């Protein structure tokens, strides 16, 4: 009966987040004389990278909810 008083391990052991989880894409410096098209291309690549990180973070969170029984 006293065994019922034993502490149950109800704390879940979550995996560590991926290395880029929640990390922002750094803003590039802009200087006079930089090529406008090159700057636009670099900014667009950064934008795509930022979206990709958000998608991956969302997928990681969805995996956590799916595998660790988090409800709505």
């Amino acid at each position, binding site marked *: 009966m006293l*065994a019922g008083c034993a502490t149950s391990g109800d704390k879940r*052991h979550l995996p560590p987040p991926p290395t*880029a989880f929640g990390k922002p894409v750094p803003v590039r410096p802009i*200087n006079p004389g930089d090529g*406008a098209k*090159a700057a636009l291309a670099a900014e667009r690549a950064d934008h795509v990278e930022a979206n990709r990180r958000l998608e*991956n973070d969302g997928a990681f969170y969805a995996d956590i909810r799916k595998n660790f029984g988090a409800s709505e």
Partner: protein
Amino acid sequence: MFEIFSAVGGVLTFAADHRFAVLALACAAGGFAAQTYIPVAGATIAKGCFAAAIGLGCFDGGYSLRARQDRSAELRAQVNALQEDIRSANLVAENAKARSETAERRRDADQRKVEDYAKMLAKRGDCPLSRDDARRLRDLGR
């Protein structure tokens, strides 16, 4: 320090499991005392005490066995839950790693494309940002 707490915990658990053995011993002691010190009804009281001691002793055996079984079941459940957590964590970590690797490959590919484009623009000529353009662009998001 942990060893001391562990030992104390073990003693307390043993005492809790065998609480009815203590009562049985008390009954037996009472039986001996009744036999020795009560002149008339001592023998009858002693028999009752000994019977109660035997009964409590048997109950203690079952009680402590059940407590041990409960603890084993609890520990097994905790081990199972931990194993399930580890399995899920490994699965999630593998998925995250695969996504990170894909993202890294695509970022490198994008970076190469940007560099190629910049090289091509450097040869062909790009429209340079004026001081005002640069200031306005830097002000975005501030």
